């Protein structure tokens, strides 16, 4: 299907712009045109379809669904819901309070909170388009595991001891108010919701796509393979925890990180180090820690930091070891 795009890009470069064949600039430009169109197409379809399916799903439903579920099943489901529901870090406190006061174990709530910012449809499409399916799958698996194992960890250390507030059941009047928005949706409602989501997400990511593909095109056209091979990152063992330790306090959303990771990997940084850096930047940040301090004691925040440091470091090491940058 994407052959048409290749031909189209070739046609523009050769016939419309009349760039000389075999020139760096023409192969770079062709790559740029082909890739941007491909990613925009995929993104449009993916966001629309997922938003369409998700229209009737909201956090209130997720909460009701998770209430009283079997523990282990709960972690997996919470992480999965985290992956498919859009997440804004400014909602993390109300969400945390809402989940815990519905008597959902802290660990299960944490599974949701950890995975949610890491995985969403825009990230999957952009990673897939720029870095390939393999790395994307690894990223998604690590993102899910980060949430699931994190949830289990917080329940093992009995994290409810470290909350700043007492868990009280929800007021009885809640039922009506919170579910008011989840009435039945018609096909038109779903379509309207999906188009709204599409506009919303595109507005946030279009620039990152141009930057990401632009960097890729530049390297594609101008930087010879030998340079990258020659300067390939040494992959010293400490580089992974150093990247993670640096990444955790930094704030960035997942889509904004992709061009950075793209260029780092293409420049020869081992994929494990690069992905570990991305995951740690995306999962939490200093501003979020400050917000979480409203509901969690410092002890819990330290545990949280240490857990992420260890987990992402292990991910990076394993990936570096297994694939040796052969992705």
């Amino acid at each position, binding site marked *: 299907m994407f052959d048409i795009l290749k031909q189209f890009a070739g046609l523009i470069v050769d016939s419309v712009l009349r760039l000389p064949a075999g020139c760096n600039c023409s192969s770079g430009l062709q790559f740029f045109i082909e890739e941007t169109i491909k990613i925009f197409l995929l993104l449009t379809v993916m966001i629309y379809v997922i938003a369409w399916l998700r229209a009737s799903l909201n956090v209130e439903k997720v909460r009701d669904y998770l209430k009283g579920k079997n523990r282990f099943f709960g972690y997996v489901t919470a992480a999965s819901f985290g992956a498919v529901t859009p997440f804004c870090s400014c909602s993390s406190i109300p969400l945390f309070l809402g989940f815990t006061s519905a008597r959902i174990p802290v660990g299960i709530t944490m599974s949701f909170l950890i995975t949610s910012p890491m995985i969403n449809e825009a990230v999957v499409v952009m990673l897939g388009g720029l870095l390939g399916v393999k790395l994307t799958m690894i990223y998604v698996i690590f993102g899910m595991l980060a949430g699931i194992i994190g949830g289990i960890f917080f329940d093992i250390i009995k994290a409810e001891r470290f909350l700043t507030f007492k868990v009280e059941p929800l007021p009885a009047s809640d039922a009506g108010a*919170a579910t008011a*928005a989840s009435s039945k949706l018609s096909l038109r409602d779903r379509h309207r919701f999906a188009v709204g989501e599409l506009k919303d997400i595109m507005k946030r990511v279009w620039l990152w796509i141009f930057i990401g593909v632009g960097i890729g095109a530049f390297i594609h056209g101008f930087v010879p393979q030998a340079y990258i091979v020659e300067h390939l990152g040494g992959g010293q063992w400490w580089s992974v925890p150093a990247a993670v330790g640096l990444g955790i306090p930094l704030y960035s959303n997942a889509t904004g990180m992709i061009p950075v990771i793209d260029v780092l990997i293409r420049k020869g940084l081992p994929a494990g180090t690069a992905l570990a850096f991305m995951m740690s930047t995306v999962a939490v940040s200093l501003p979020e820690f400050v917000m979480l301090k409203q509901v969690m004691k410092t002890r819990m925040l330290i545990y949280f930091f240490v857990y992420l440091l260890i987990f992402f470091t292990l991910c990076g090491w394993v990936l570096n070891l297994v694939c040796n940058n052969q992705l």
Partner: protein
Amino acid sequence: MKVQILGTGCPKCKALAELAEKTLHENGFEFELEKVTDAFQIMKFSVMSTPALVINGKVKVSGRLPSPEEIIKFAKDAENE
């Protein structure tokens, strides 16, 4: 009527506050607008995804930006109650 915007300060919360104020003002509603930013206060409305629009103590919409038409409808509903 009493209009409250629940949100911890994200861009969408500000957008909702501005949109609600502008829409209600242009359509001649009498209202008083309050921004609720404290998470524990927001919890009292059992809202988990911000921004949320509350009119006369009732949550009308949460987790997204409503359209101006919706806001007008919510306001009319609230006046008729």
